[in-house]
Structures are given as structure tokens and as C-alpha cells.
């Protein structure tokens, strides 16, 4: 029902950090992404919204290397990353959280975040065995960064708890800390506020702003449109794997195609209502 109309990409001032170029991804008969193109500028907070099954998570999965697009490509920081191994993409500077929390449950909160920090470390089993100074420096630095990030997201007092024992909200925040510990340039958050009450959501949006203030670029998937509108600089709307809008929050809120997509009615019906 939603027709494929190519959006004129809004003029941007900053330089582009990530861009999807005409990405199509098919799962057998299902076209999860259909010629999707969008980009994020450095330092931007970009909202990625759309109804259930629109392809938002799939877009994340393409960006982070879980799926290789059927056609099209992903450029990050000036280089093609399509087809790179997942851990290599992570090391290039893309980190993410998961819609369904995926922590290392039997490890402590601190260890979870340290795994993230280890992405920047290089010493191996031999240096660990011999306790080489370089290894000990990395270990200390990783711990320090991890503790700082736990504080930053508000799980500071729970460092030694098992991740699986944390409350639901703390687990979501811990995922953010773990992703940030990889010291990414781009942080992708997949519905980080899912299951939160309004005040928790507000606090989370505050946190996302603080993350941007640390110099990160944020790609945010969120269902709650009002929430997104308060924090993002720009919004990309997906529906049935197709981009139907790419504009400022206010513009998108008044876009008949977006309204139609969210209400599940044909676009012309919305228009005739007027």
C-alpha cells in the first residue's frame, strides 16, 4: 500500500558518518528492506521509527554486519563496511544494544562492560600468563573505563552483581554501557526504552543527550513517537521495508504518509478526512 517515493535527502551541514546506499535485503519471499538509503552525520541523533515489522531492527542488523544486504552497501566513516566480519565492524566503531536484552548473564555487570572495553585491547594469553606490564595497563584501563561507564548510565552500585540478576531497567542501561565501552563512533540503540514507565523513559532520553555530548553519534530506534521527537535531530521513517520519510521531527509528525503508516490506513483516506 505504501508507494515507494524517493525522499529528497535533507541538506546537511556536518560530514556523513554512516550511510546506507540503496540497501535491499530479502529473506526468501519477504523483502525486509527495499532500496533503503539514509545517512547520519557526525554528532547527530537520528531516530529510526516505523510500525512493527517495518525493518528497523533489520537495518541495524545490516549496519552491524549480522546480515549482508542482497544489494546495496553500507559506508561507515568513509569506507565500505558491507561484508566485513561483525567483530571488525565493531572495532571500526559501531556498537549496538539489542531489542531483546542480550547480556552475558552469568558474568558480572563490570565484566560485561569490560568485554566491550576489550575490543580496544590487543594483549593475548601469553602476556596474561606472564603478567606483562602492557597487559596489566590494559586491564587497569579497561576496568577504569567500565566503572566510569557503569556510573554514567546509572548502574554504578551494581558492578559486582551478575548481569542476569539486575533489574530489567538496569539490564537495559548495562547494555548501553557495554556498547559504549567499545568506544564507538556510532551507537545504535534498538528500543532502549522498551518496557519503561514514562519517568524512566524521560531519564533515558536525558541519558541519550548526554551520550551525544560525549561526542558519539546516535542511531535510535523507538516506537514511542513523542519520546523520539523530544530528543532526535532528524527522523527516518520505515514502513514495509521502505523509507517513507526523512525529515525533521515536526515535519515527519505532519506527514500524511507517516500518519497513515502508523494508523494502518491508506494514505488517501487520511487525506480525504481533512
Amino acid at each position, binding site marked *: 500500500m505504501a508507494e515507494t*517515493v524517493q*525522499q*529528497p535527502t*535533507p541538506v546537511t551541514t556536518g560530514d556523513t558518518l554512516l550511510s546506507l546506499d540503496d540497501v535491499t535485503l530479502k529473506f526468501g519471499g519477504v523483502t525486509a528492506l527495499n532500496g533503503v538509503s539514509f545517512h547520519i552525520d557526525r554528532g547527530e541523533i537520528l531516530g529510526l521509527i516505523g*510500525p512493527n515489522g517495518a525493518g528497523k531492527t533489520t537495518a541495524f542488523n545490516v549496519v*552491524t*554486519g549480522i546480515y549482508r544486504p542482497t544489494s546495496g552497501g553500507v559506508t561507515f566513516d568513509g569506507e565500505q563496511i558491507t561484508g566485513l*566480519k*561483525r*567483530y571488525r565492524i*565493531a572495532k571500526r566503531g559501531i*556498537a549496538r544494544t539489542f531489542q*531483546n*536484552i*542480550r*547480556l*552475558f*548473564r*552469568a*558474568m558480572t555487570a563490570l*565484566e560485561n562492560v*569490560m*568485554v566491550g572495553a*576489550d*575490543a580496544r585491547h590487543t*594483549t*593475548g*594469553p601469553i602476556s*596474561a*600468563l606472564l603478567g606483562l606490564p602492557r*597487559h596489566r595497563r*590494559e586491564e587497569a584501563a579497561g576496568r577504569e573505563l567500565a566503572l566510569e561507564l557503569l556510573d554514567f548510565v546509572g548502574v554504578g552500585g551494581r558492578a*559486582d*552483581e*551478575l548481569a*542476569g540478576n539486575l533489574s*530489567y531497567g538496569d539490564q537495559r542501561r548495562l547494555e548501553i554501557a*557495554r*556498547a559504549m565501552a*567499545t568506544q564507538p563512533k556510532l551507537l545504535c540503540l534498538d*528500543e532502549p526504552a*522498551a*518496557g519503561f514507565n514514562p519517568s524512566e523513559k524521560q531519564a533515558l532520553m536525558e541519558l541519550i543527550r548526554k551520550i551525544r555530548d560525549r561526542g558519539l553519534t546516535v542511531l535510535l530506534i523507538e*516506537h*514511542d*513517537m*513523542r519520546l523520539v*521527537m523530544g530528543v532526535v535531530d532528524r527522523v527516518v521513517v520505515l514502513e514495509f521495508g521502505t523509507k517513507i520519510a*526523512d525529515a525533521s521531527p515536526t515535519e515527519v*509528525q*505532519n*506527514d*500524511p*504518509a507517516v*500518519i497513515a503508516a*502508523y*494508523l494502518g490506513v491508506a494514505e488517501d483516506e*487520511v487525506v480525504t*478526512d*481533512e
Partner: protein
Amino acid sequence: MSQTTSAPPRRSRRDLLGGLRRRLSGMPRWAQFLLMVAIALLCYVLPLLEPPIISTPGTDFGGVLFTVSVYVLVAVGLNIVVGYAGLLDLGYVGFYAIGAYTVGVLTAQHATWPWLLSLPVALVVTMVSGVLLGWPTLRVRGDYLAIVTLGFGEIVRLTLINSEWLGAARGIRPIPSPPSLPLFEVPHLDWSTGVPLVDFSDTTTFIEFGVTDPIPFYWLALTLIILVLLADKRIKDSRVGRAWEATREDEDAAELMGVPTFRFKLLAFAIGAFVGGIAGSLFATRQTFINPESFTLLISILFLSAVVVGGQGNRWGAVIGAVVVAYLPERFRGFEQWRVLVFGLALMLLAIYRPQGLLPPRRTVRAQRMEAETEALEVGEEPEDAVIAAGGPTPDDAAPTDEGSSRG
């Protein structure tokens, strides 16, 4: 050890070990260190003390302790693969066999190297075989890996049986002992009168490796266990150990956090094989002969049960599990026909009452309960009502005009 998870308040006898551990980790570091040294010393003198009840009637106590220590080595090595990295390896006996046979080939079958020289070669060979097995198989997951490794163990055994070059079913003999350095005699204790008496007619030579007295072999094995445990601790507490555990917990999430999981799994396989190779080499030299009989699937299962019984993922659990699996059957040798039955029953009871093993790692009952709760939350999370929330446009006030739209 940062053990801060609160345990369920119910104090049951089953939690004796857990309680002990909590008390241990509460002690200051120097006290822990002294305790460890004391335990190690006790282990060294144990075969000389021959304490009643613990000592094995009917079989040579020193020999039993040697067997137990080989199992401990194996369990600690296998724990790296199964416990830390979460790779179910049913063919670990293959590495044990490769270690033993490399020593056999180099010292007896095709050359006459001294044992000490053959040892490093054996370890390199087992490590390489670990990598060769892991390279193609570690890309498959879970159950498949178990089947492939099971096949590996059997292939190794069948190769040994069918290869004349490796002595076929006869095996290899005589495998030499490590170099001796006889310095002095140490007397044993004699408890036959009910009180411990120093028995100067029953002595062990420090340190002479011979066929008659297995105690020096036990001392050697114990020393290697201590070294392996120290190395295990260092590696486990580093980014390598974290990468293993992260891979075990969630391989995809680990990859996306920058962990090259395949490489770390391969490393776990190689290190595990290395330790299995040490155990195999020790076994070969103590035995003086080896044949394919000693490397059956049953042994692989026993190795694995040592890790599982103890609590996979915890090196001390693996040690305790190995002691249970290797020692108890020897202690109750008198009940020959009942041994396997009792062992099977014990495993079943354990599976029912303490599925995490005797001394599991920090994962607690509470963690599992939380898991269920979180899952429930996630299921109920379908945000169907979360679309265009109150502040967003409704069909009435949407008033979509062409100007307000970003669409061309």
C-alpha cells in the same frame, strides 16, 4: 574473587560447599594464600601419611592418588573448553591419547628419546591437533560440535588400533620414566596399631621414578596441576577469559562487541588440548605401556562427568569433580559389581538435586529465577499501544497539507 551475589537464605546441607566458598572469599588475601599453601603441602604428604578412611584398602594409595591427579589435570583442561568457552567436547580423550602416544612413539616405538625431551614435542603435537580439529569444527554450533568431537575421539582410537606403526592393539612399551634424582628416603606412616607410627621399613625415595613406587609420579603430577591452575587463573582473569565466557553466554552479542569468537574458541581448544596432552604424557610414563584400551569413549564420558559433577566453569569445581569421579570408585573397590551402578545413581541424584554441579561458578539459583522474570517482561512488551502517542498527530488534528509534508 568478587562474590557478592546473595545466596538464597535457606541453609541446606546441599549448600555446604557454597557456604564454605563464601567464607573463604571473605578471608583476607594473605590468609587465603597461606591456606592454599597448607592445602598444597597436605596434598604432597598425603601418600606418606596414608590416613585411615581416606587411604584405599586393597590398592596402592600412591597409585590411586596418581590416577586422581591425572583426572584432575584432565578436568581442569576440559573445564577450559566446556566450562569457560561452553564448547561441548565429547572427544577429549583423543588429545589425552595423542599426548600419550607421541611420548610412546618418541621414547619407545620409533626412537629412544628421554621422556623429558619427548614431553614438549608431545604438547606441541596435541596443541596442533587441537587446532586442526577446531579449525573446521568450531564453526558449527552446539549439538553438532558434540557429535563431531565424539567422532574425533573414536577416530583417534580406531587409528591406534589399526595402525601397525603405532603398535596396533598391542600398543607401545616400554615407555621410560622421567629422570630420577635420588636424594633421601622419606618414611611413611603406619596406622596398623591405631596410632600413627613412623615406619622406616616403608619409605619413598625423593625423588626416584620407578615402577614400584608411584608416589614420585604423583608429586610430579601435583606440581604440574599447581602450575596449570596458576596459569588457568591468570588467563581466566584476563580479556581471554572474559572473551571465552562472553562467547559461551551469547556468541552473537560477543561478536558484536568486538570479540573474534572463532579465534578465542580455537584458543580454548588448543589450550585444552595442551593440558590433555600433559595428562596423557604423565599417564604414559607412569604406566610404562599404552594401548588403545585406555582411550575409549567411556573415558571421555568420565572426563566430562568430572567437569559436570564439579560444576562447569569453576576450576575448583573441576578439581573436586575429578576427585569424586576418580577416587570414589577406587575407594570402594570392594564393591566391584556395584561400582558403576552406584556411580550412575550418584550422577542421577546430582542431576536432580544439584544440576549446576557441586561447586558451580557464580551463576546462582537467583540468576535463573530472574531470567524467567525478564523473559516474561519481554514477551509482554509488544508495544502495540505505543504508536503515535498522545502528543503526536491524531487523524483529526493531523491536517496534512502539502507544505507540512516532507514528501515530494
